[in-house]
Each structure stands twice: as C-alpha cells, then as structure tokens.
C-alpha cells in the first residue's frame, strides 16, 4: 500500500511539473483579467465598427450614383421632363 501511494504521489508530482512547464498556460495573466479584456474588446470592436461604417458609406454612395445615372438616362430620353 505504501509503495502504491509513493508511486501515485511521485507520478502526480511528475505530471504537475510537466503541466507547469509545458503547454497548460493560463489564458489571462494573474490579476489583470477584466481590464485587459475590456481593452482587447474595445480595440477589436472599434476596428469592425469602422470597417462596417466604411462599407455602408460605399454602398450609400454607390446607390446615389445609380440614382444620378437613372436621372441622366431619363433626361436624355425626354429632355423636357428632367431639368437640373
């Protein structure tokens, strides 16, 4: 029984050393979770909001050009109808 306990203990200690030294790193540094998370979220959200605003702006400008093109076509077809 003593031998078994010693074996389990030594295996456990060896595994603990292995985990400590290798891949099992915590995802966040000690004592700095909330503020770091806020900064990362704020930075990433800012980038995506700006990109979405840019895409929306391009889309709206593209629609305006389409409207102007239609107005030009109408004015060519019937010059008396559209005056600018």
């Amino acid at each position, binding site marked *: 029984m003593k031998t078994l306990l010693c074996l389990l203990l030594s295996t456990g200690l060896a595994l603990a050393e292995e985990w400590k030294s290798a*891949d099992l*790193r*915590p*995802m*966040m*540094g*000690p004592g*700095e*979770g909330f*503020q*770091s*998370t806020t*900064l*990362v979220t*704020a*930075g*990433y959200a*800012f*980038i*995506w909001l*700006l*990109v*979405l605003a*840019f*895409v929306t702006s*391009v*889309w709206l*400008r*593209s629609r305006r*050009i*389409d409207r*102007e*093109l239609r107005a*030009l076509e109408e*004015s*060519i077809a019937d*010059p008396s109808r*559209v*005056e*600018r």
Partner: protein
Amino acid sequence: MKRDGLFGIAIALLAVAFVLVPSWILAAPLPLNPNGLPMAYAQKIFYFHVAVAWCAFLSVFVCAGGSVFQLAKRSPRGDAVAIAAAELVVVFGLCTLVTGPLWARKEWGVWWVWKDVRLVTMLILWITFLAYLFVRRYGGPGSEQLASGLALFGAVNVPIVYLSVFFWRTQHPQGKVVGSLDPAMRAPFWLSLAAFSILYGVLFFLRLHLERQRQRLAEAQLAAQDAGLVRW
C-alpha cells in the same frame, strides 16, 4: 445586380473574418514574458494592431503608385486607385492610432507618449492622408495634382515611421519584432495578417469600383451636355 453581388461577397467575407479570426486569436495561448510568466491578455491587441498598421502602410504605397500614374499620364484609372487607397489609409490608420494606445495603456501605463517618434510620425502620416481627402473633396478643379503630391509626401513618411525605432530612443521595442516572435505568437500573427490583407483587398476593390462608377457617370454627364442631349 453586379454591385449587389460585390457587396454580398464583401459582407460574406467580412462575416467569416468576423467569426474565425477573433476565435483563433483570442483562444491562442499567451506567450511568456522574459520572467517566464504569461503576458497580459491585452497582448492580443498586438495581432490586430500590427495587421491594421500593415494595411495602412500597404495602402499608402498603393495610393502613391496611383498618384504617380495620375501625375505622369493624367490617368483616370490611376486617380481612382489613388483616391480609393487614400480613404483606406485613413480608415486603417485610424484603427492603428486607436488600438496602439489601448495596448500602450496596459504595457507602458500611458495612452500616448508625445516623445515617441513612431507615434508622432504615424499621426502625421494619418493627418497627411486626411488632408489628401479634404483636398480632393473641396479643392476644386486641379486638386488631383496637389493631392497626388501629398500622397507622395505621405509615402516618404512610411519608412520614417518604420525605421524610427532604430534611429531614436522610443517607447516602442527596438529591433525587428516580426523576426523575433515567440513561437506561440507566430500562427495567430500570420493568420491575422493574412485575414486583414484579404479584408483590405475586398474593401479596396469595393471602393475602386465605386470610384470608376463615379468617373463614368461624370464622363457621361459631360458627353450628354456637350451633345446637347440634356439641359442643366
């Protein structure tokens, strides 16, 4: 229909990037600092910050290339490339200028250091391209030439921004950061860089398509007016 298709592809790519890239990057293990402890979680900003700065620099050179064509050959296509790229310099430059201080607050304890040459030259670069857009918007006839000059001036500033850490003592780390990346940082870093480069490409072609549409409309309006087909 063509425009709707383009916007559909753009939105789909944005959505994929919106889900995949942050999932990978935020789940990647944190690298260790010189003391052997994991870095602060704010280190994740590095992946976005460097990628958007890369897109801003790339866009500066694209804008400068278009401007050279515009100046040398009065090429409308070159002009369209230049103005599309200039808008993206402002977008990605602003992202760089916002994400940098967020990281600096955690890493250095301050939002901004006016004595840091890299920060200040990056701000000057961004203002230069903001000026480019103002000149194009309100400069009237001939503003293309002046704006092209501004774009070339901005392109000269890029090597100064990049090399400033070698010539002056700054808060930014000296040396080649990308070359000396921790192995845990390599995969998320390159993935992020690739994703943002694709994003840049999509946004650039959307904006370029818009500018070419605008130029064609202006040409059609002039032609119709010259031919007496419309009354203005």
